[in-house]
């Protein structure tokens, strides 16, 4: 069954007296466990698409089914709950809370969900270990390297064990080496079953995905699925 299904989705922005069609009749169906890269020039609507899928934004028109359920009509509270439990976000700018330590940042989604403290501690420790961040648990973001910050962000995005992981230019602020590490981590998460969507303008990174979507002017221009995944060596 498709985990994400977009039907004739439009997203218009009103800028002055002009209407910008950031998404223009987008149809997309993504199977559970898939690895999708979304590429295209700047301003082609990649982030808008990802935000919409992540329920940070609402379509102007069209339908969005998540796990077969129409989520376009959900209330704010219900949407927040879906974001909390089913979707993980990784951003180009990391978006760590500067005054919180790595461990506290990772803990945040569980605090919002009302998970008990002892369970939170166990899960945070596991996540820190899995991402090789044990020694950085009590460091603030400004004491971490870019690669470490993005690893903390990934740990935070996956701590609630979501079905879908959305990454918008996750390597955009990183050097090649850390960028590669981050991609490796994301791919290993995908290998363990998470549905992975990566927005990137880096053709090399985008080319690794099993399914590659190219966008232009708010439309899906090409949508290729290669039978052989480059992600697995």
């Amino acid at each position: 069954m498709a985990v994400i299904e977009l039907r004739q989705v439009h997203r218009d922005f009103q800028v002055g007296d002009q209407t910008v069609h950031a998404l223009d009749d987008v149809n997309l169906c993504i199977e559970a466990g898939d690895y999708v890269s979304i590429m295209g020039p700047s301003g082609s609507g990649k982030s808008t698409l990802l935000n919409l899928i992540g329920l940070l934004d609402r379509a102007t028109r069209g339908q969005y089914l998540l796990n077969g359920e129409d989520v376009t009509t959900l209330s704010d509270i219900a949407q927040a709950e879906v974001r909390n439990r089913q979707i993980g976000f990784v951003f180009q700018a990391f978006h760590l809370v500067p005054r919180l330590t790595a461990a506290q940042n990772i803990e945040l989604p569980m605090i919002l969900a009302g998970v008990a403290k002892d369970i939170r501690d166990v899960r945070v420790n596991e996540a820190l270990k899995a991402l090789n961040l044990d020694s950085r648990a009590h460091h603030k973001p400004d004491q971490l390297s870019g690669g470490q910050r993005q690893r903390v962000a990934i740990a935070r995005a996956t701590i609630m064990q979501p079905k879908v992981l959305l990454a918008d230019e996750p390597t955009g602020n990183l050097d090649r080496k850390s960028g590669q590490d981050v991609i490796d981590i994301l791919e290993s998460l995908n290998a363990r079953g998470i549905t992975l969507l990566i927005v990137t303008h880096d053709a090399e990174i985008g080319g690794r995905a099993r399914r590659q979507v190219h966008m232009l002017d708010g439309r899906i221009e090409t949508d290729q699925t290669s039978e052989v995944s480059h992600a697995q060596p």
Partner: protein
Amino acid sequence: MHNRDIGAFAWRALTGYTTRTVLMLIAMAIGVAAVVMLTALGEGARRYVAGQFASLGTNLIIVIPGRAETAGVSPSTLMGETPRDLTLDDAMALTRNYRVRRIAPLNIGSADASWKSRSREVTVFGTTHELLALRHWELAKGRFLPDTDIDIASPVCVIGTKIRDELFGAQPALGQWMRIGDRRFRVIGILGSEGRSIGVDVQEVVMIPVASAQQLFNTPSLFRILVEARTREAIEPVKTFILETLKERHQGEEDVTVITQDAVLATFDRIFTALTYAVGGIAAISLFVAGILIMNVMLVAVSQRTAEIGLLKALGAAPRQIVALFLAEAFLLSMLGAVLGLLLGELGSMIVRQMFPTLPAYPPGWATLTALLVALATGLLFSLLPARRAARLDPVLALSGR
């Protein structure tokens, strides 16, 4: 989201931006401290005045012979009659009412007093043992006048400290026989209190039983009868009782004047209470100023932390969770500020009390409580707008820092 986690998150936000937090705490603390200190001053002034009145006697009613002139020209004055004397029997009659706690008849005169070679003129009070309690006086030594029947004249006296010093010097006065007028009295007590009574310094007074004074001055009439009512509410009924009783005893002639100090005291009390409310209210305005400051700072916080709010939304925070987080921050700030202010206010009041020991500048309980509640209420109220603004932020725009 658990309350403890909300609190911890808010606490980290406060400690994460120390300058902002300290400034807000100071603003809140000053407001609360102002309320506490100013009401303490107002309350102190009220208590000071009340204390001054209380030292004259509580629930005190004074009976004076003769009709007050303010009552106009009465037939008796027209006919050239002198008012009837107040007698010991009149005084006794006034005890026959359950609302009367105690009475003390008072006779006053001056006489020469001497011991051995020393002598001086003294004011003599003829009274009963009840006067001590009625006037809230204290004895420095010995006993007060004996609790005998009102008409028993015994040769004992109680003297003020100045009389003791001047007549007895360093010698022990207690038990000595001294001469007052043409009679001899044994000193049985020395009055410790200071202050004035009927315009006389009590340290310069000699007190003897009222019956002895009547013999000494050769007069059956009393200068005053002091009556203490059991409660403040009893004052008016007792006043009526006194007027009726004496009118009846004086052949239907209303020829005494009854005055109460509590009427005056009550007026002062009202004035000072109103004053305390007024200064408290003025100080409370500074709390509102602090509230507006909190609103400003919270608005700045919301715009500074836009990206964080966007992130929280992306992580699944519902609008009311974001409101809760910001309100918790405001609550902690106002609470800490208020507690700090209470401490400051108490400290300030303490310093005032040290500097002016006669002024009991204790902040009244209602003021402390109100200041605390108003601080919390303004803190929360003025943070509601910023918090809701935060909750309504568009997550995409917030994350992009727009």
